[in-house]
């Protein structure tokens, strides 16, 4: 631990001072007889990077799907921004400020990078069909205004050179970055990243880590992150929640979680 690194107490104090953005209380989700998530409670605070980790099949992705309304939990209370939500649809979650990226790249393959990111702003564009058919007046102004925002994101993530390239032809690392750009175009308050570094080489991982920190730091976006690379998780995140078989087994700052015997058991296995 270098001199610059904050001590454990400092990290904890920082986390406690923050407001809660998303709170999950006793959330359970099952598909028929299969229990994907059992009675999980945790919260995500404003401005933090919150990692969700666990072995395969622990329910991490299901957790994200619950948060952005793709799955409806059978039990539990979810409070976002102080508001209890009853039922949720993914496209409504976006308008509330929740954006996400996917484990497998889910870009619109036939469209250019620019169009993909512009599509992320679909819900913010309001001009009606008639104006759009003319592409003139308000419709053109709206298009340009959003283009400016999108260009800012393109600059931020350093993808200027692939603006016009169809995303289907891009290398994997860049596709992941375009996906992050599309999520940022939604100007989310809470950004859900599902394995942003899966399948990347070291250099791409370093780039992506830098972008995640920059997004968190400069744009003030709260980030919930699923990742298998423990080095990345422990370095980036402020707090970590650990799931195993749909249950929460640990929650806390990286140092605490790392030394938790249950977490070590879940990852390394334990002899019975």
């Amino acid at each position: 631990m270098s001199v610059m690194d904050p001590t454990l107490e400092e990290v904890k104090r920082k986390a406690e001072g923050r407001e809660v953005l998303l709170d999950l209380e006793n959330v359970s989700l099952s598909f028929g007889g299969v229990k994907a998530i059992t009675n999980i409670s945790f919260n995500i605070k404003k401005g933090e990077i919150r990692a969700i980790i666990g072995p395969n099949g622990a329910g991490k992705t299901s957790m994200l799907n619950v948060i952005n309304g793709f799955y409806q939990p059978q039990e539990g209370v979810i409070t976002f921004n102080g508001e209890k939500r009853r039922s949720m649809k993914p496209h409504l979650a976006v308008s509330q400020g929740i954006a996400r990226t996917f484990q497998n790249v889910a870009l619109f393959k036939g469209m250019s990078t620019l169009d993909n990111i512009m599509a992320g702003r679909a819900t913010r564009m309001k001009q009606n069909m008639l104006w759009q058919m003319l592409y003139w007046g308000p419709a053109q102004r709206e298009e340009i205004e959003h283009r400016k925002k999108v260009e800012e994101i393109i600059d931020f993530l350093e993808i200027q050179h692939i603006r016009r390239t169809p995303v289907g032809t891009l290398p994997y690392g860049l596709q992941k970055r375009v996906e992050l750009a599309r999520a940022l175009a939604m100007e989310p308050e809470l950004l859900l990243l599902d394995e942003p570094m899966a399948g990347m080489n070291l250099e791409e991982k370093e780039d992506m880590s830098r972008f995640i920190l920059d997004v968190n730091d400069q744009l003030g976006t709260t980030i919930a992150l699923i990742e298998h690379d423990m080095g990345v998780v422990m370095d980036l995140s402020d707090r970590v929640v650990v799931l195993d078989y749909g249950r929460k087994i640990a929650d806390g700052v990286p140092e605490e979680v790392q030394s938790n015997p249950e977490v070590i058991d879940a990852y390394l296995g334990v002899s019975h």
Partner: protein
Amino acid sequence: MFYRTSGQFKTTYESDQALFPIKQDMILLVVILAAMYVIFPMFASEFTYKALLVPVLIYSLASLGLNILTGYAGQLSLGTAGFMGVGAYACYKITTIFPEMNIVIALFLSGFFSAAVGVAFGLPSLRIKGFYLAIATLASQFFLVWLFEKWAWLYNYNASGAIEVRTMDIFGLVVTGPTASPVVQYYFVLGIVSVVTFAMINLTRGRYGRTWKAVRDMDIAAELVGINLMRAKLSAFAVSSYIVGIAGAMMVFFWKGAAEPNLFDIPMSFQIVFIAIIGGLGSVMGNFLGAILIVALPVVLNLLPELLGLSIGSATMEHVNVMVIGSLIIMFLIVEPHGLARFWALIREKLIIWPFPH
């Protein structure tokens, strides 16, 4: 060589997002429009209008409508001809009920009826995808043709069961019916096709186009960037059927002059699907290229032996025709599965960087 883009700098997003970011494209379009509006009418005979120009334009428009649905929004449809029929019959009823109405207004109004029917038959798309949806649209095809036959009110209780367009004029100019001059009809068709095409180019490069393409490429991701799938799909059905309906109405009013229900049967649906696929799904220009290949080429091939002084029986020619067109379609699909529009895009790209290989 012709497409030298050096020296054309973009300093504003406005100019970067202009309809023609490259100057040469605009010049090309002006040349084509000049040919369509000025040069063709100087030479064309009545036969050229009736057999070549007007059919190509109308089929292009119908294919454009289908392309919005299938090429942009990714919803496969085999019911195009049925929706064309709705447009035609709606226009027929509108002109019967309001005999004084301007035919162009009636035409644009009839599109709303086909749009409504299209949305109704598009509802299954919210649940099913791909080939299963194609079968559902096929049902609309059968149902609509059956309706045109059985609902006598639609054809004003004619003994023949067909709709016949009466003579109508705009400011003294006869535009429909047997006495209308083909030149006038050609200009009306050309004008309407130009306007609709312009509107669709704009629509497809803006928010709606992106929304539709997002639904086509990955509907789950589209939903998670905040796109309402139901609205996106149904708006595609509405816009598509609107255009297809206008094309159907124009087919009857400005070209055929009369129509029986079986005109709007499956063969025409398939023909329009072929035009869209060969022209290029997800492209506006492709529809025109496809229509030229599928609609105009057979006519030209039929005339060819006569022009070359060969005496081939018309029955033989008919067979040769089918063979030539068939092999051309296969060839184009092998050379460029993404259609003629992509073919042109590749040529254009090569021209821009010529003489360098990349």
